[in-house]
């Protein structure tokens, strides 16, 4: 008779010598690399224990939220001015991350906001623009409050065209601006005349042409496109080369069909061809359309939003709806362009962590060996370890975003705040690095970790229920 009903299959938690014995005797066993939960903080350990008592209910809520998160079917359907698409009021500037007062806004984000105010023609110079913000004549609001995800500074104003992504499984929409390209760009805090000139071209020529072409196509399936790009070594945050190529291929017939002036099509084609990260904004808009349906599931500890504004890191957890939990944002670690170093870097910013929230970016790092060196010297092995580590804090695997290098296992998705607090493993996010000085722009790229504080705060709120 088997005492346990079946041959012993053992999870060993603690001394590894017991697991080694079992392994030597060919007894199926998995060893847990155990550390004190919540970094040994007894107050948090007690909170985890309280939550564990209602594990079944939480697990059910998380399964619901995860199903909504991973079943999203984002289609790129349009590109229209934010004024129309978001019904964005005049004299409103959207920014990335959780809300914050002007006094706490970091330099590059300030520069982007002031540049955008000049671009809209609300002020003639930065001083006048600053005065408008300070006396409340221009309102600042987070992108996430307007169904939008903004890269880096994430600045959106009414006349800027935004892509419209429709989640056909859940009826939500997500939006993002058109990626400006590399170099001196508004999202990294550059705001000189060349930046504003490009924004003008995007609003008057590229945006309308893209919108007409997309409307003619009737919708591009972004989930299928992203699944395919993942197999082509993009993780859709640090690397969007394949996704941009696939998108261009999908859009060009529509753009050619609606015609427009020949030189305008040529300029747009040249712009797309020269911008490897063009798709990032689409991944973000798709992400926004996918995460919103996962919010508001009572009792769920699943993270539905991760966003930074250059000052704070903010998350939302499904069971707490639209409430933000914030902590000071970390500095990214990474590689710098020649002439720049860590001392020049601004604290991390942007809504692009939505890419990780849906299981791509750093969570799918193993799929993108070409950008693995941003993690450090280890390269591919570190990339695999990164994905494996993120699996430790995720509730599931993505049914559509599958990784060939892992025998088609799905990428880890659905960060569970309980697991983050229990393991002290915080989500890793691939990111660009902005100069801390206004007007300089991007100075590098790397990886940043979410601060633990916002996850413990969210869990405490859930535990208090």
């Amino acid at each position: 008779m088997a005492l346990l009903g079946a041959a012993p299959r053992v999870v060993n938690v603690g001394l590894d010598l017991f697991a080694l014995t079992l392994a030597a005797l060919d007894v199926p066993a998995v060893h847990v690399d155990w550390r004190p939960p919540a970094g040994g903080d007894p107050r948090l350990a007690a909170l985890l224990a309280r939550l564990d008592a209602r594990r079944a209910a939480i697990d059910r809520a998380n399964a619901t939220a995860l199903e909504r998160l991973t079943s999203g079917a984002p289609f790129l359907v349009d590109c229209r001015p934010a004024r129309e698409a978001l019904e964005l009021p005049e004299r409103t500037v959207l920014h990335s991350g959780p809300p914050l007062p002007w006094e706490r806004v970091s330099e590059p984000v300030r520069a982007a906001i002031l540049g955008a105010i000049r671009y809209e023609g609300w002020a003639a110079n930065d001083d006048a623009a600053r005065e408008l913000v300070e006396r409340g004549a221009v309102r600042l609001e987070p992108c996430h409050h307007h169904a939008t995800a903004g890269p880096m500074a994430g600045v959106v104003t009414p006349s800027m065209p935004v892509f419209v992504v429709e989640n056909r499984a859940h009826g939500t929409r997500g939006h993002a601006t058109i990626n400006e390209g590399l170099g001196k760009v508004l999202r990294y805090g550059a705001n000189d005349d060349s930046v504003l000139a490009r924004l003008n071209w995007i609003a008057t020529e590229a945006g309308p042409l893209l919108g007409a072409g997309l409307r003619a196509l009737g919708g591009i399936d972004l989930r299928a496109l992203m699944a395919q790009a993942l197999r082509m070594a993009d993780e859709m945050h640090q690397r969007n080369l394949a996704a941009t190529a696939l998108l261009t291929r999908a859009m060009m017939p529509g753009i050619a069909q609606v015609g427009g002036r020949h030189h305008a099509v040529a300029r747009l084609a040249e712009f797309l061809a020269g911008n490897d990260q063009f798709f990032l904004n689409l991944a973000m808009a798709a992400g926004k359309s996918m995460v919103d349906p996962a919010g508001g599931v009572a009792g769920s500890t699943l993270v539905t939003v991760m966003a930074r504004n250059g000052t704070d890191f903010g998350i939302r957890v499904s069971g707490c709806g639209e409430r933000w939990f914030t902590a000071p944002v970390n500095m990214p670690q990474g590689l710098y362009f020649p002439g720049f170093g860590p001392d020049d870097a601004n604290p991390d910013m942007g809504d692009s962590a939505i890419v990780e929230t849906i299981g791509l970016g750093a969570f799918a790092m193993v799929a993108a060996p070409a950008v693995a060196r941003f993690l450090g010297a280890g390269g591919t092995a570190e990339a695999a370890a990164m994905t494996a580590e993120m699996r430790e804090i995720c509730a599931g695997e993505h049914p559509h975003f599958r990784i060939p290098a892992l025998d088609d296992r799905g990428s880890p998705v659905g960060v569970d705040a309980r697991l983050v607090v229990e393991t002290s493993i915080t989500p890793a996010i691939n990111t660009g690095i902005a100069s801390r000085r206004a007007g300089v722009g991007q100075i590098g790229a790397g990886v940043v970790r979410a601060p633990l504080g916002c996850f413990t705060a969210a869990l405490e709120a859930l535990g208090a229920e």
Partner: protein
Amino acid sequence: MPAFNFVRASFYQDSVTLMRLSRDMEAVPGVTAAAAMMGTPHNRELLQQAGLLAPEGAAAGPADLVIAVIADSPAAADAARAAAEHALLARRAIAVGNTTAATPRTLTSALKILPDANLALISVPGAYAGAEALQALRAGLHVMLFSDNVPVETEVALKRLALERGLLMMGPDCGTAIVDGVPLGFANAVPRGRIGLAAASGTGLQETTCTIAREGEGVSQAIGVGGRDLSDEVGGLMMLRALELLAGDAATEVVCLVGKPPGAGVARRLADAAAKLGKPCVAYFAGASTPAAGPWRVAATLEDAGRAAVALARGTTPAATAFTLAAAEVERLVADAARGLAPGQRYVRGVYSGGTLAYEAIDLLAGSLAEVATSLTTGGSGHRVVDLGEDVFTVGRPHPMIDGRVRREWIDREGRDAGTAVLLVDVVLGYGAHRDPAGEIVPAIRAVRARRPLAVVASVCGTDGDPQSRAAQIATLRDAGVIVMDGNAQAARLAAAIARRAGAR
């Protein structure tokens, strides 16, 4: 036969993945041909040529997955579709010990790797052990909790929950178990057999199972319940459950119960449970001057418990054995050992790594000597035994069964004491223990004996099948001049005899 098409909209899959699905689908009875392809124009044409295309598939787009089947019935086609989707969606089983997977950090994550695990072996610090065990029980796992320093109310709560769910909660403070032949924690290589054990003592269970093995019998199950289970506070919750399990276990012919003396209420319930066994039962209660009465045969020592269980299994009458050596041989050992001692050398000094073994030793010494300290941590100036596995000695240091450093220090310390006539030591072998525990302490023994004559008496708890090999460990000790007895009780008796002889001069 007709073609059936099933379309999953917007479900991108790589063609390599999809090609494997044909085989899964064609294995379904009633299916003659099958394919799974993305609905690109080219693929739809291929499906058309193969007669696999139906109207649903013809309307699919490039991002849609088309599952196409030629089958004799809609039911067969649907079964093929299910097979394909199962193969697509089922998580790939991960080989145990897969080196590409990172070591899991939590029980939750480990269960994703080994979803059909049925036992958690937990040995984390006591402050965290209760929470881990609770999580494991809630996940439906049996638990062996090696950790000690778990509050007794936590122990009771864990055991009650386990009983509610039909699970074993072995521990806290459960050092060893052998479940379905699998050694857990510190356990020895003993053959499987017909004697079932339930023990509230780690090294007590080891000493008994090793005696059984040496006598040529084997163990069906050895269930540890934790050192406190027989106290009135815990109420023998798990011991009673273990007896129930052994009663129902067809492979168990004889039951052997090992532990500290039970509380009064527990003793009564144990007697009731033992009466329902329907099998002969032997009980050893460490240090009990008047052992709890019950439908069991009381053994005076762990060795006797093992030998009695063997006798009962063989249908012979158990008999208590003071020494397995001939009386003359015992006399020779005592005389030789006492001969070189100086007049002041009168005392036995035990330096132990096994808790129950130390307890048994002090119990036997007290039975035939005066001036025996009762504490296992702070001895008096007479005969004394220290259990170096006690918390006060292991704070911030490895257990003496894993690392010999503390034992070497104490052997040196007791060896220098003018009153020491006999050093009494245990050497505990088995899985998990140090790979050469005798070799760990022999240098200290040699150093002590080099300074002046001194008797060193030892026993080796283990079997020749253990990774360290009992025979090899005995040879190491004898080579250093150590008198090695057959079991701990005999070693303690011999040490007492030597001390008596020394004191009589």
